């Protein structure tokens, strides 16, 4: 089905619920519905195969309009159907839950509940997801009248639900500090001997409040703020943001710049997957593969330093284009690096699929069927390893992917081995694509003039990060800063599948299962609370700096 037919069909089936349709962009249909119609509308969309729930964007429309807005976005190919719901701007208005139809929605609804203060009726888990246990009740960060003083910590109380007794319950906590985790997160596994009988998780340890922070910075500054959401998918975040803002400003980015962006995105994908290969091998206890893949990753990072000036957080995009050009010398360096990397990646693919001791840890473990992948809302290579054909670069091409497309890589088994296979094969495709682009780099300018004030409007941009689909909802009020920026990163959707698969496996398989979905905790959490051990105090950014400076001054005086 083409985009137009999808949107047309969506318009037809949602007509009974619609209180007003609009088309904010060519590939979007926006339908305003009542909160009570939400489950029925969702059922109709799912039964007609009109998309999967990609994100829920909550916004506080402010005192003048006096409403809260919650939008549910369903994506199918390039078409996005959005269900827009307006709620009264009071404490905890009701909205029905859709997590009985879509399990991954329970994560989104937890965020909705704690960040905007909406009561989701019928959600299976209403505990806190990101906010810490000592956050006061009734204080919602995404509301317009939120100030940092309201967030003074209170006595903490446990908010995670009980796991229920199954056999001899014995819980093993993993995290927030654990050698298995490269970033903090809290998992609790109920084990019976070595078999896992229950799992639950808690995020939010590196939450930095980025969504709220973007509202206080201008459009150019946000480019760099969003880049630092994550170290290994930094370029995808800037690409998504730049694409969205360029769409709002109706500026056409030159083809050369788009091609350069795609090359850097490809290199980032190589970097990310090699890093993941090393980490997953380390979780399995195969340190040699870890050392070798990270050694080869150095080639990519040195190449990126030559091309963009930095090994991580490349900062090559600006609004309207890119900063640096690629000369013949750079093309030569890229080709040489690709030669070396292709050989090594083929070797790793061979090891990962044939080494007997490694296969013992990955074959047949964490098997997820196609139906389960769809049900759990998996994204990225985790979904593709189960045969689910979901890739934003192919479903809804953006930037230079119109001219330099990539091929879809899927596997059938859905176990850990398949995930390794899919990622390595994706890298081979990426190497090929990079070579093609470098040989056929379109001529043109690097960047075009860009206005400082972006006209009012809202836009959605989706890109394929190494972990799956990253979803950006950008709303501008016509000024120098965005009014609302919502980021839904792929790892958040993949957690459901990992946790559900953990039950029934052994404790020793848990690190591999978590590593298999390539979690990026930094992408998930986005908020500020600085806490020292015994005296809890919430500090804002400037207070923290002053405190640091004062402390150093004191230590110098006492010396």
């Amino acid at each position, binding site marked *: 089905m083409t985009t137009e037919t999808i949107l047309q069909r969506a318009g037809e089936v949602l007509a009974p619920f619609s209180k007003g349709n609009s088309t904010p962009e060519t590939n979007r249909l926006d339908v305003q519905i009542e909160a009570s119609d939400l489950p029925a509308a969702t059922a109709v969309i799912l039964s007609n195969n009109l998309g999967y729930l990609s994100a829920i964007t909550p916004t506080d429309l402010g005192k003048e309009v006096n409403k809260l807005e919650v939008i549910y976005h369903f994506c199918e190919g390039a078409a996005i159907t959005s269900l827009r719901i307006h709620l009264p701007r009071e404490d905890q208005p009701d909205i029905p839950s859709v997590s009985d139809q879509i399990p991954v929605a329970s994560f989104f609804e937890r965020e909705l509940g704690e960040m905007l203060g909406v009561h989701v009726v019928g959600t299976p888990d209403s505990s806190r997801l990101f906010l810490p246990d000592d956050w006061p009740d009734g204080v919602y960060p995404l509301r317009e009248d939120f100030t940092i003083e309201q967030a003074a910590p209170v006595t903490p109380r446990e908010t995670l639900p009980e796991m229920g007794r199954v056999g001899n319950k*014995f*819980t*093993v*906590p993993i995290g927030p500090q*654990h*050698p*298995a985790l490269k970033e903090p997160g809290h998992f609790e596994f109920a084990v019976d001997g*070595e078999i896992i009988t229950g799992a639950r998780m808690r995020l939010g340890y590196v939450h930095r409040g980025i969504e709220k922070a973007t509202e206080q910075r201008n459009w150019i500054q946000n480019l760099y703020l969003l880049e630092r959401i994550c170290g290994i998918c930094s370029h995808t975040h800037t690409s998504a943001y730049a694409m969205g803002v360029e769409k709002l400003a109706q500026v056409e980015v030159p083809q050369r710049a788009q091609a350069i962006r795609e090359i850097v995105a490809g290199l980032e994908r190589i970097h990310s997957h090699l890093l993941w290969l090393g980490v997953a*091998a*380390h*979780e*399995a*206890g*195969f*340190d*040699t593969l870890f*050392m*070798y893949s990270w*050694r080869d990753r150095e080639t990519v990072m040195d190449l990126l330093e030559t091309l963009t000036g930095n090994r991580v957080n490349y900062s090559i995009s600006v609004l309207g284009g890119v900063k640096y050009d690629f000369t013949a010398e750079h093309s030569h360096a890229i080709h040489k690096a690709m030669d070396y990397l292709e050989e090594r990646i083929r070797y790793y693919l061979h090891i990962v699929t044939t*080494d007997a*001791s*490694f296969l*013992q*840890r990955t074959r047949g473990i964490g098997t997820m069927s196609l139906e389960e992948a769809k049900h759990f809302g998996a994204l990225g290579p985790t979904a593709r390893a189960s045969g689910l054909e979901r890739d934003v670069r192919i479903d809804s091409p953006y930037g230079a992917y119109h001219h330099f497309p990539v091929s879809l890589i899927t596997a059938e088994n859905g176990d850990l081995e398949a995930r390794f296979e899919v990622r390595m094969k994706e890298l081979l495709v990426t190497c090929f694509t990079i070579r093609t682009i470098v040989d056929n780099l379109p001529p043109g300018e690097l960047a075009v003039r860009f206005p400082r004030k972006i006209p009012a409007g809202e836009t959605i941009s989706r890109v394929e990060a190494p972990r799956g689909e990253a979803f950006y909802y950008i709303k501008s009020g016509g000024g120098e800063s965005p009014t609302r920026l919502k980021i839904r990163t792929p790892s958040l959707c993949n957690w459901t599948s990992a946790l559900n698969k953990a039950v029934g496996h*052994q*404790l*020793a*398989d*848990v*690190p591999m299962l978590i590593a298999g979905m390539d979690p990026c905790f930094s992408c998930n959490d986005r908020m500020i609370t600085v806490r020292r051990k015994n005296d809890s105090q919430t500090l804002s950014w400037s207070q923290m700096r002053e405190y640091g400076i004062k402390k150093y001054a004191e230590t110098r005086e006492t010396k």
Partner: protein
Amino acid sequence: MSVLVSLLSLMFFPAGISLILSGMLYEWADRKLVARFQNRIGPRWFQPLADTIKLLSKEEIKPHGVNNLLFYGLPIVALSGALTAALYTPILGFSPIYSFQGDLIVALYLLSLLTMCTGLAGWNGASRFSLIGATRSLTQLFAYEAPFLLALLGPAMAAGTWTIKDISTYAGDHWMFLAQPVGFVIALIGLMGKLELPPFDAPEAETEIVAGALTEYSGRGLALFHIGKSVELVVAISLVTAFYLGGVGNPLIFLLKTLIILLFMAMLQSMLTRLRIDQTVGMWWRFGALLALLQILVIVLLKGWLA
């Protein structure tokens, strides 16, 4: 005079201080070899010594609610077990200091004492990581102990004696690893299981259970366990070398042979993924025990036929 000689050999050479130091040197050699196989530099020669000194100087934190006697006593017992086992084995290429009839069994049990102390220490520790580590440690003990014992029994049966000194003398004249190749392989791999080296390091899996049975230990207790492990490394390698690679002869050549075994162990460590505990047990009870029994059977038949 002999009392003085005994005391000196117990405290300084070849047991005692020089044993501990050589344990550290062997540990360094192992880490350096693994690093070179992984294309890295590896630690400098004094690293294990520095680690031990650092650990001995740190504060020992006792978790709340553990049994005091066990907590402070187990590291000492573990280390003494390993040091005592060294008295009967030809470490550093010199004849064993003491020997009596049947000391093979005693030496092996003293080495197992170390693993059992680790298991008990893990159970005693108040965290669930140490409990899981202790369980895995003891499970692994049940797995590899039988095949390893049988593999060491092979040369004993060929020599017709249970005394380590006599077996080494016998092995010095006959090349056992050629005569009993299966036993040699089992002994080598069993060595890796005993020392909890990868791929058999499930009891100490860093990425799953932090540090296994020794998670709650710090400072002096951890240092003693650590030294005990390196001493165990020396003793066990010396046993296998003495039995299979030509007994005790020239100390320098003996050292070289132990280093060759260390090289093979380092190679196996780098090449294989960590096995899950159920896979370890399955493998040992299926292949290890069967092959070792087969080897013993062959020896018995041959002895009967030759006699």
